[in-house]
């Protein structure tokens, strides 16, 4: 038996697929197993195919693979959609008493378990629990102790009363017992448990938690898939730390409300997806020109226009690097894992305040909606540092006043960073503006001052390039002939693909780049390699273009833009095929 186990539940939107999957993932996590989940969902409330997949193992898992061991199919389409991932011996749990499933065909070699999910749920107190019956059945076939499911059911339903918890537990047992009594199947799965404590969270939640850890007290946003979870996470929690969330009327307003809070001195953030970034672009320039620290999260989804709102893509890179008119100093961070969504958000707040510059955090849908297990120490709050930069108070402000006693919020400095006075600071009153301005913040069209202010803002990024860490994350064999470079969520499947290729005798060096602007100088690494492949989820190879530009070299590209993330074995196969081609 492989070390990992792959499970899925699929049906129509509205079937409770997501919450059922989450309960099982939680149960596995609470049993001390590592979990990596993946969601197929449609942009609609009801109808359409939707699925929740779980890969679990005792060792950490970083990706989905193209193998499914147990599938709970609420609709015939669920079997069709997953046909290629099912293998000989895969188990399909379905309810043959459901009209649409009555004549369902189980592919040859697979084990169909016809379990009356609805009827067994009704026996436990209500048809609504039919998915929990299926979870009980899954426990039976996978050799997973049902007590661990209980713990997840308690967490999920505790707020709704003990009776409901008990009903759900009974429903699960009905499923388990039905399979045990009616079917004599031993597939050899034994999902062992450990004493390890894990937490289970997705990338949006990690971003939200990172913001709170960094002292973010203000969030303004407008709901948009797949970034809404950031806002929903913060509401109900940010208040505990003296903060507030505003739901704005649109993204234009959201970034301007967030900007206002930042001008008042709060650590402030907004999160959106590509269409929202489009709308925010004009104000992004104002944030930069007025030298306001602001964190703007882009959870990328498939574009352009409305695109495929619930599908994966890394198509916004060029917009984040170059978007908005004029020339704008900025930082662009790109977390590569769910835990890095936390740490890069913390870092974003520090960079924003130290350099009084807007910071984009570029996450992608695969990070945002995937739940993954981590040891709690991964998010050790003692390691969180808060750096606020050159904030002046009533005493220190004197050093930054001109001979008339006026405060200079855009003073020309060697490092490009000027002092910052929060409103309310005595003798600090000043104007900030999107117009070009002098050191006092007064508009100017003076040619000399224009150049000095542009240079000063540019200098901040150069200072940061010198003073901060922009290194890539390195994996694999540092001396390998083949170098793979990627950004964003591709790190997970790539790290697993390295192991798969190693068993085929192929060694790789892999650099995962979490800093998109400024970014690491990859020239030496590219020159040292015989083959360079850039992996990303877009059609045109936006990051590959940048690598070519930065290193004055040509690279191979693996691009995926069908809306689905890479899985590890697919990526391994792509790389292997590419290496067999004769280099051009």
């Amino acid at each position, binding site marked *: 038996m492989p070390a990992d186990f792959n499970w899925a539940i699929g049906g129509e939107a509205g079937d409770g697929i997501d919450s059922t999957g989450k309960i099982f993932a939680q149960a596995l996590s*609470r049993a001390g197993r590592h979990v990596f989940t993946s969601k197929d969902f449609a942009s609609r409330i009801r109808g359409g195919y939707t699925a929740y997949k779980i890969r679990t193992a005792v060792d950490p898992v970083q990706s989905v693979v193209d193998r499914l061991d147990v599938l709970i199919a609420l609709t015939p389409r669920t079997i069709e959609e997953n046909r290629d991932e099912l293998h000989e011996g895969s188990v399909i749990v379905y309810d043959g008493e459901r009209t649409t499933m009555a004549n369902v065909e189980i592919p040859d070699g697979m084990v169909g378990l016809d379990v009356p999910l609805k009827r067994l749920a009704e026996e436990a107190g209500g048809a609504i629990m039919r998915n929990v019956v299926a979870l009980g059945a899954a426990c039976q076939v996978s050799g997973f102790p049902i007590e661990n499911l209980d713990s997840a059911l308690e967490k999920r339903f505790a707020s709704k009363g003990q009776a409901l918890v008990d009903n759900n537990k009974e429903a699960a047992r009905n499923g388990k017992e039905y399979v045990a009594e009616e079917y004599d199947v031993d597939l050899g799965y034994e999902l062992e448990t450990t004493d390890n404590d*894990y*937490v*289970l*969270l997705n990338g949006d*939640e990690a971003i939200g*938690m990172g913001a*709170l*850890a960094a*002292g973010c*007290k*203000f969030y*303004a946003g407008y709901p948009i898939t797949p970034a809404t979870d950031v806002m929903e996470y913060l509401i109900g929690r940010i208040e505990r730390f003296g*903060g*507030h969330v*505003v739901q*704005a*009327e649109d993204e*234009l*307003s*959201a970034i*301007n*409300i*967030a*900007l*206002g*809070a*930042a*001008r*008042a*001195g*709060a*650590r*402030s953030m907004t999160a959106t997806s590509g269409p929202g970034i489009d709308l925010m672009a*004009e*104000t992004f320039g*104002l944030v930069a020109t*007025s030298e306001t620290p602001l964190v703007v999260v882009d959870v990328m989804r498939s574009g352009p226009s409305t695109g495929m709102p619930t599908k994966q893509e890394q198509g916004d890179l060029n917009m984040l690097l170059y978007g908005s008119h004029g020339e704008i100093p900025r930082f662009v961070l790109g977390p590569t894992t769910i835990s890095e969504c936390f740490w890069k958000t913390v870092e974003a707040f520090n960079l924003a305040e130290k350099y009084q510059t807007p910071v984009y955090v570029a996450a992608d849908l695969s990070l945002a909606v995937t739940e993954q297990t981590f040891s*709690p120490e991964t998010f050790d*709050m*003692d390691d*969180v*540092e*808060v750096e*606020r930069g050159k904030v002046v108070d009533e005493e220190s402000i004197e050093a930054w006043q001109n001979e*008339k006693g006026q405060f200079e919020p855009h003073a020309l400095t060697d490092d490009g960073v000027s002092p910052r006075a*929060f*409103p*309310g*600071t005595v003798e*600090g*009153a*000043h*104007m*900030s*503006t*999107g*117009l070009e301005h002098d050191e006092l913040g*007064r*508009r100017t069209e003076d040619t000399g001052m224009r150049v000095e202010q542009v240079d000063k803002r540019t200098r901040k990024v150069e200072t940061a390039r010198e003073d901060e860490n922009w290194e890539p994350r390195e994996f694999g064999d540092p001396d390998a002939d083949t170098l793979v470079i990627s950004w964003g969520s591709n790190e997970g499947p790539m790290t697993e693909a390295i192991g798969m290729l190693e068993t085929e005798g192929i060694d790789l060096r892999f650099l995962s780049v979490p800093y998109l602007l400024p970014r690491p100088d990859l020239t030496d690494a590219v020159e040292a390699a015989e083959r360079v492949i850039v992996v990303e989820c877009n059609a045109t190879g936006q990051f590959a273009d940048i690598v070519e530009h930065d290193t004055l070299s040509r690279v191979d590209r693996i691009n995926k833009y069908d809306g689905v993330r890479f899985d590890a074995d697919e990526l391994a196969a792509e790389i292997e095929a590419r290496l067999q081609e004769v280099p051009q």
Partner: protein
Amino acid sequence: MSSDVRFTDFKSDQQPTWCPGCGDFGTMNGMMKALANTGNDPDNTFIVAGIGCSGKIGTYMRSYALHGVHGRALPVGTGVKLANPELEVMVAGGDGDGYSIGAGHFVHAVRRNVDMSYIVMDNRIYGLTKGQASPTSRDDFETSTTPEGPQQPPVNPLALALASGATFIAQSFSTDAQRHAEIVQEAIEHDGFGFVNVFSPCVTFNDVDTYDYFRDSLVDLAEEGHDRTDYDAAKEKILDASKEYQGVVWQSEKSIPYGEKRGLDTDMSQVDDGAPEGAMDLVREFY
């Protein structure tokens, strides 16, 4: 706050570039007087300005200020006030900024009822781009971009505010210095969103809605015995297209500002040196 603040303390060292005779001079003077009269000083005041002739006002005043992008001044003011309720926040803009490109924000800022004031310099024309129709221009007002007039009715900003659930609606005339300053002062003192539409004539591009026109047609509600807390009476005045009114048209006695409803009473600029106390509980929630 110092008690001896004079309104001239709110003047910056910049000379306005408004045309001689522009209504915005009077509008700004009234704003400065009202701020001084309400015990504010430049260091606790935050002015947000939009784009257009009116948007230059932040430059000519001395306070903390942000001169933002076109039409988004109200969201900025919202963020400033919620993040630091101790600040006096005043948003200033024009009829284009507020009722055209920023009309969506106007509706929602009114609904939100954040405790700040919004002063709109309404000259019924686009001045800075040299004379095009604005959302409050008359339907037959001929301009370079509307040679036969806009041929659509002007926005009634007071009605828009009322329909959006406003708690304070007023109108003033920039050249009636005393009344204008009084009305702005009332907007500042109002617990909630204090909205004042100020007739602030453009002497260069608008030859219809002139000083003379407003002087001749303006009716002061204070002299009419209007009860500002009477919603139906307010509605009647606001929808009366036959007259131009000056004064506080509507003030809700039940206004509770956004921040007060949500218990926002602290300056959010202060942050711990590391993760805040209790942050590790956030991690445990995911167990």
